[in-house]
């Protein structure tokens, strides 16, 4: 498998899981959180999927394509250990969906992702959906079935309690 193949597989899994998450929360109001804005591609996809929802993006720095940049009110800049509590204080349990696109491929860095669920939980409505490129472990979060196109372990969907 070439790097082109694996990149297509990863992007397709992301798209299919976000589309599945959209179906899981269809008809519900609430904010959508994008943790790891990057170049803004998935943010743009979330915008297309959730036109009536407030979208908030989180990243260490803003380096998204100009077409995919959130306004200042909807962007939390800094380390998630700081920005998630700040967002929770401001927004409360507002989110109906959170998408985590944080995997760096460097294990020592990705280990810190395990510390995020307790920081994220105070932002989630009961029954909110969490989609993630990394596995997450939190009591009360239930792993959901992936779309048929996505192999187990490639992406993760959870329903928060």
């Amino acid at each position: 498998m070439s790097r082109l193949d694996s990149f297509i597989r990863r992007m397709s899994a992301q798209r299919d899981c976000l589309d599945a998450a959209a179906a899981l929360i269809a008809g519900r109001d609430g904010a959508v959180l994008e943790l790891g804005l990057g170049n803004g591609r998935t943010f743009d996809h979330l915008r297309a999927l959730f036109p009536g929802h407030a979208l908030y993006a989180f990243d260490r720095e803003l380096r998204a394509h100009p077409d995919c940049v959130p306004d200042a009110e909807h962007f939390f800049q800094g380390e998630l250990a700081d920005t998630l509590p700040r967002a929770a204080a401001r927004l409360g349990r507002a989110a109906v969906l959170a998408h985590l696109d944080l995997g760096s491929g460097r294990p020592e860095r990705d280990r810190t992702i395990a510390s995020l669920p307790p920081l994220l939980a105070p932002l989630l409505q009961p029954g909110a959906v969490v989609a993630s490129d990394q596995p997450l472990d939190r009591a009360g979060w239930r792993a959901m079935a992936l779309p048929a196109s996505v192999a187990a372990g490639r992406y993760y969907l959870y329903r928060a309690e």
Partner: protein
Amino acid sequence: MPGDALTRMIARLETQRACLDFAAALVCDLPGPVLEIGLGKARTFDHLRALFPERALYAFDREVHCPRELLSAPARLLLGDFRATLKAAESELGGRAALAHADIGSHDRAADAELARAIAPLIARLMRPGGVVLGDRALDGQGWEPMGLPAGVAGWPYFIYRVGAVAS
């Protein structure tokens, strides 16, 4: 192209892969090196390596944006402006390349068109008769015959040419 940035990215990459696979099949019996003009993150370069494990690969770009280990031998890296590096490659590659992939598109369509005009004749001098040139922008090489895209590819524009029997 319609759709959001993620959907467009997937359409572009799937088109690119289908066209590379198609082009590789066209030149499977035609010997000669393979050129990647626009190395970028080396995803398509890596795909060309998988398609052509035995062939010499030549990568052209202004600078390297990918992990160096992807460029291990027998790959050759030619850094600089395409106009200069393609011209300089003629002494070594002239009339020998079986396949050239030009991944040169940017957000500036006018600049892309100008670059395509400048490099098409330079690529032409490197190609073997019967070779295949493909890219994400139209290229007007003398004696190149445009080909249809492989079946099932409709999500993104791509351009494939067969180099005529008489090289320009």
